């Protein structure tokens, strides 16, 4: 079906500046100050995005539980012990993100290895 309209189309024109049904909105800008301690850098951004981040993590947890019932227990209880093995400043930044989002550290670590896990 990919090669047949309406799933494929002739090259579009006049789509920019973005508008219409394929445009869902502009992306908001934030500043992250690298001179701040790593733990504090993401606080403002994460406090703004706490609700959607929690919603996404909850969905991933539900999905993971359906396939590997014990996975989230391992993620919550074992993964945080490895935070010190991450190169600076990434471990401290993740701790800051987890605390600002009110989520377990292991779940933020899981979100950050999402790419590695799904490249199969």
């Amino acid at each position: 079906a990919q090669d047949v309209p309406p799933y494929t189309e002739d090259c579009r024109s006049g789509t920019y500046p973005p508008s219409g049904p394929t445009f869902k909105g502009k992306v908001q800008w934030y500043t992250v100050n690298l001179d701040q301690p790593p733990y504090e850098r993401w606080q403002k951004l994460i406090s703004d995005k706490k609700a959607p981040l929690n919603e996404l993590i909850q969905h991933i947890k539900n999905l993971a539980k359906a396939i590997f019932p014990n996975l989230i227990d391992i993620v919550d209880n074992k993964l945080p012990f490895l935070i010190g093995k991450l190169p600076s400043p990434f471990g401290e930044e993740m701790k800051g993100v987890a605390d600002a989002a009110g989520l377990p550290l292991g779940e933020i670590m899981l979100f950050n290895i999402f790419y590695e896990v799904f490249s199969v």
Partner: protein
Amino acid sequence: CTSVVAQDTSGKLFHARNLDFGLFLGWDVKNNSWIVSELLKPLVVNVNFQRNNKTAFMSTSFAGYIGMLTGMKPGVLTLTMNERFSLDGGYIGILEWILGKRHGVWMGFLTRSVLENATSYDEAKDLLSKTEMLAPAYFILGGNKPGQACVITRSRTSSINFWELDTQKGEWYVLETNYDHWKPPLVIDNRRDPAMKCMKTKGQKSISFTTIYDVLSTKPVLNKLTTYTAMMSISENKFEAYLRDCPHPCMPW
């Protein structure tokens, strides 16, 4: 994902991408959409990373993810990363890392280090080609001079292929989806040919944010997995990102 770096006839480089993610992570039957793709959209943010009150680099990212998938170091380089699927994938790298074999770098950390620390296109190319990683990937890199654009195809341990812009041979853009560029794409997921056909139609003379956005808005380059479109230009010092939607009927990938 679809990433492209194109050079116009005056030598200006334009780097753009569609970020597609969320395949097989739950389908919302009611809204005809991938659940994770939709949940990711409110998390998309542009981040201006500053040091000494000056921009060190910029990125389009997902809140909570501290690595980089799309970024620009003003005056120096632009970088995007596309997923490369492999049986020798990142899950092996992660298991090894958990079990104590920690030679490899997390993909998002490597791209962030490059954006933060690389001082030239060549240095970035070297780091992205040679650093051992936990997962395979495609790195699409642009520089600040004509001809500086490439796709680096990576396995976990080494660079498999290096494809650079060659305007002398008429190759005025490099375009990468999620398949090795020297092999045909998966027959049910061919976004490469429609995107290349569209680039050819637009032509080198007219390449700009306007025409690249048209390319990335054409189905199936735009699909149900597309969360955002980002466009970057070193020469014009512009960085733009837009949230996307692909209303039904639209390919799921």
